């Protein structure tokens, strides 16, 4: 079924990929085999095709032998299709005359029998040689890139990315769902391993965001819809009502004092419930923007309508608006950075550690607030009944590295447990026990920090804790929390009585990660973290062009890594913006109008909303810029009206023929 055309001259190249391919596939045999296939003018094997000499080989042959089709048998096109397309184009040939055959992931890596793997390689190569004869020259179209950027999530990653881009002169919309930016870092006391005060390094950045002329900060807001494609996204943002006019409020806090609740009564989110707030409140003194808000779930006005509204009366700036409604904003941006972060593991899911049952079992975040000088106890370490603990147990890996909860290592808990051990010791002088299963301290300066802690009289017990209970056996255990653990260093089960237990909870994908994934049309890994395009080569890209990820939404990450990744995401966005335009893959679908019967089957099939119906003409048409070339519509069209570049019927049928018939 191969095309009859003597003009066609195919160059075939097979890569050893070191031992990766040549170890399992007899590359010389495949080269010789390919040489005998129709229209193959040149057939060569080379150790590393992707290297410079490998690419030059192709270019030289194209010129010397007037080749007009290229087939490269090597690794996955995901990795190197671009490399070989570029090489082809450099030699003056249209890049779509190049076809890759994946004989690594699809062959050598998954087989062990050399003869069979070689046979399979020959089949796959034959298929590509059949298909490439039908390839047509295609042109990449380009579309302009809107220079504005949207960043979702105002933690340390979002803040860093926003400032980087804004300083580069780009307009940035920073959207944060909480009333203030700052994220989890704003709740920390000190950061490891340098013990910098978290607030001192973060809050200047927060106010820089607020004051930057290039940054529009929308806190207490969520994205509800995204349309468009790389370079040209239209994003709908819903701003939740604060019941305060943001521009009028100067953060004098007179309203909070005046509130009819004399005492603060409701769980304070920022202090992890260790203190109370009023219905009108500000998350914390350095909140950005420094604007109060009203929680309608606790405000008497919203609950009964019978409140004298003393808060509003106390406001001499007339900032109150109890009738505020959600406000919908629409903006156009070219690129998007998602930095929506993580959520801590909920220790109720590990009931054997007694969280929620014994009052003196705390989460690590609660301890961050407790040791914080501006926290609910001004940094005094006391148990819930106000006593000073004499002994504290820190349990590592709560909800991490566990088949029953989360299987992954959360990457930061070892280090923050060491930090909390240091801080708790410093603030209370108590005996501190760290229960760990492995100590993982792989960052710069981290091992040194561990060493420091080893010399600070903190006890380290290796073993996964089985249980925290109040089950006292002897007199001196009474009134204590008992930590039962197998000490795997000495091979015995121990019971350690303590006054306070700290659960080093792990990191999970954010609560709304799945919604965000759907809205932005990106993928998640098995664990539910956002999936990067390639873990090593494209760690901040997603599979959707123009959408980047940064920080712990991609996987557990500490502050240095989040900041580095945020910088990388900003740089990638800048690269797109500064190029001014993006090239679109031409493997899109198109409709032959005369054949379209207007049944509209394709419209619902398209996952990217790329097809629209023209009611006047009663025909469908495809927006090339939105089409991702998935081919769903092509297969669904009963009239045979839809075709797809690079996947023409002849190309596919010839390829199938090539696989099956020798």
């Amino acid at each position, binding site marked *: 079924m191969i095309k009859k055309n003597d003009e066609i001259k195919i160059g075939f190249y097979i890569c050893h990929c070191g031992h990766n391919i040549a170890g399992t596939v007899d590359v010389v045999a495949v080269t010789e085999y390919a040489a005998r296939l129709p229209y193959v003018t040149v057939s060569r094997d080379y150790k590393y095709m992707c290297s410079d000499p490998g690419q030059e080989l192709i270019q030289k042959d194209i010129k010397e032998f007037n080749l007009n089709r290229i087939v490269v048998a090597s690794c996955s096109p995901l990795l190197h299709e671009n490399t070989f397309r570029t090489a082809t184009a450099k030699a003056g040939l249209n890049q779509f005359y190049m076809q890759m055959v994946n004989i690594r992931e699809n062959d050598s890596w998954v087989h062990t029998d050399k003869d069979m793997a070689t046979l399979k390689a020959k089949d796959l190569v034959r298929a590509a040689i059949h298909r490439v004869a039908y390839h047509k020259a295609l042109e990449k179209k380009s579309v302009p890139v809107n220079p504005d950027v949207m960043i979702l999530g105002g933690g340390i990653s979002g803040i860093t990315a926003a400032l980087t881009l804004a300083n580069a002169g780009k307009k940035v919309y920073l959207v944060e769902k909480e009333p203030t930016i700052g994220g989890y870092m704003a709740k920390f006391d000190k950061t490891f391993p340098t013990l910098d005060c978290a607030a001192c390094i973060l809050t200047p950045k927060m106010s820089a965001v607020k004051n930057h002329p290039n940054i529009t900060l929308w806190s207490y807001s969520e994205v509800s819809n995204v349309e468009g494609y790389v370079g040209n996204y239209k994003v709908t943002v819903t701003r939740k009502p604060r019941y305060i006019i943001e521009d009028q409020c100067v953060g004098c806090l007179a309203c909070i004092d005046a509130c009819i609740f004399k005492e603060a009564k409701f769980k304070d989110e920022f202090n992890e419930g260790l203190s109370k707030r009023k219905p009108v409140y500000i998350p914390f003194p350095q909140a950005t923007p420094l604007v109060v808000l009203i929680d309608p779930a606790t405000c008497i006005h919203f609950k009964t309508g019978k409140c004298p509204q003393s808060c509003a009366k106390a406001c001499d700036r007339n900032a109150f608006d109890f009738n505020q409604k959600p406000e919908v904003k629409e903006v156009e941006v070219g690129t998007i950075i998602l930095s929506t972060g993580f959520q801590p593991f909920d220790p109720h899911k590990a009931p054997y550690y007694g969280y929620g049952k014994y009052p003196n079992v705390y989460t690590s975040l609660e301890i961050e607030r407790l040791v914080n000088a501006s926290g609910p106890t001004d940094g005094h370490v006391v148990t819930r009944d106000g006593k000073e603990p004499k002994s504290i147990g820190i349990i590592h890996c709560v909800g991490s590295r566990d088949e029953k909860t989360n299987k992954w290592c959360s990457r930061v808990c070892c280090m923050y447990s060491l930090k909390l051990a240091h801080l708790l010791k410093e603030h209370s002088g108590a005996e501190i026990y760290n229960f760990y299963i492995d100590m993982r301290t792989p960052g710069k300066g981290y091992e040194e920090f561990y060493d420091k802690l080893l010399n600070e009289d903190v006890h380290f017990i290796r073993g996964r804790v089985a249980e925290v*209970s109040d*089950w*006292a*056996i002897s007199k001196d255990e009474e009134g204590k929390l008992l930590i039962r653990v197998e000490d795997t260093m000495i091979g015995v089960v121990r019971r350690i009585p303590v006054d306070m237990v700290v659960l080093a909870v792990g990191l999970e994908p954010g609560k709304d990660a799945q919604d965000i994934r759907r809205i932005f049309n990106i993928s998640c890994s098995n664990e539910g973290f956002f999936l990067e395009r390639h873990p090593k080569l494209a760690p901040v890209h997603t599979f959707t062009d123009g959408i980047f990820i940064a920080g712990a939404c991609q996987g557990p990450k500490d502050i240095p890594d989040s900041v580095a990744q945020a910088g990388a995401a900003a740089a990638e966005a800048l690269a797109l913006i500064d190029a001014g335009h993006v090239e679109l893959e031409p493997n899109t679908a198109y409709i032959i109008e005369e054949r379209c019967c207007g049944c509209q089957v394709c419209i619902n099939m398209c996952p990217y909303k790329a097809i629209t119906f023209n009611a006047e003409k009663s025909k469908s048409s495809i927006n090339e810029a939105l089409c991702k070339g998935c081919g769903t519509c092509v297969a669904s069209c009963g009239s045979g009206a839809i075709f797809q570049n690079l996947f023409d019927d002849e190309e596919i049928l010839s390829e199938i023929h090539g696989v099956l018939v020798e």
Partner: protein
Amino acid sequence: MKYVYFPGCSLKSSGMQYEKSLLSVFKKLNVTVEEIEDWNCCGATNYMSINETYAIGITARNLALAEKQGGDEIIAPCAACYMGLLKTQNYVSSDPEIRQNVCKELTKTGLSCQFKIKIRHPLDLLVNIIGIDAIKNAVTNPLKGLKVANYYGCQLIRPISTFDDVYNPQTMDKIAKALGAQTIDWPLKTRCCSGSMTSTMPDIGARMNFEILKDAKSRGAEVVLTACPLCQFNLECFQGKISRQFRENIKMPVMYFTQLMGIAFGIKEKELGLHQMLSPALELSL
């Protein structure tokens, strides 16, 4: 719904009080059960480590007999029997090779099995099917304020529970409360009773039982309830020895939850086997 009943060896011997009380409670609540004819050992022995096919096979025989008798669900009161049957059902349905071998053995004895029958512990039946309201309605002699420690043991709900919270089981607690009793919240409700260690490593067995009983006692429990004949046996039989060994008097009634239900339902002591207990359970009914 036809319930067939698998007593297992203990309920016919050392745990006969469990059978007596269970059946009289069932009668009071209008639950009819039919004993599986010609049942055999549940396989809760070391056989498993010697010949897996036969070990699973003998348990499977009970399942086959139950199906043959037209049962929809098996009621298995002993925790070991219950787990053994459940385990067999799971193995056979998830591993085609085991299933084939076991079916081959069954065919030799003229039996066949679909492995579809549901296996239920009486706690599951009473709480989730019969319902707490029915239990409350049957109470004629409310156990005002009696402080009860509910002891589930380690294997009834772990590792695979189909009817209760693995870490903090509640079914027995709900029943005790329905009878008018108070329950204590204690971390040892799912601790191991030491199984057969009371005979193989008696010192360790004694210590494990001592800790369970002592903790129940120190939290004010007046009786420990069990749902397994081995747990009941271990916790009740060695109290004298334990008290001497640890120099602490830990006398504590240990009874089946069905016996306490019987007391609250006003069933006669003899029908509940209370007179056959080693601990002073009888006093509770007075």
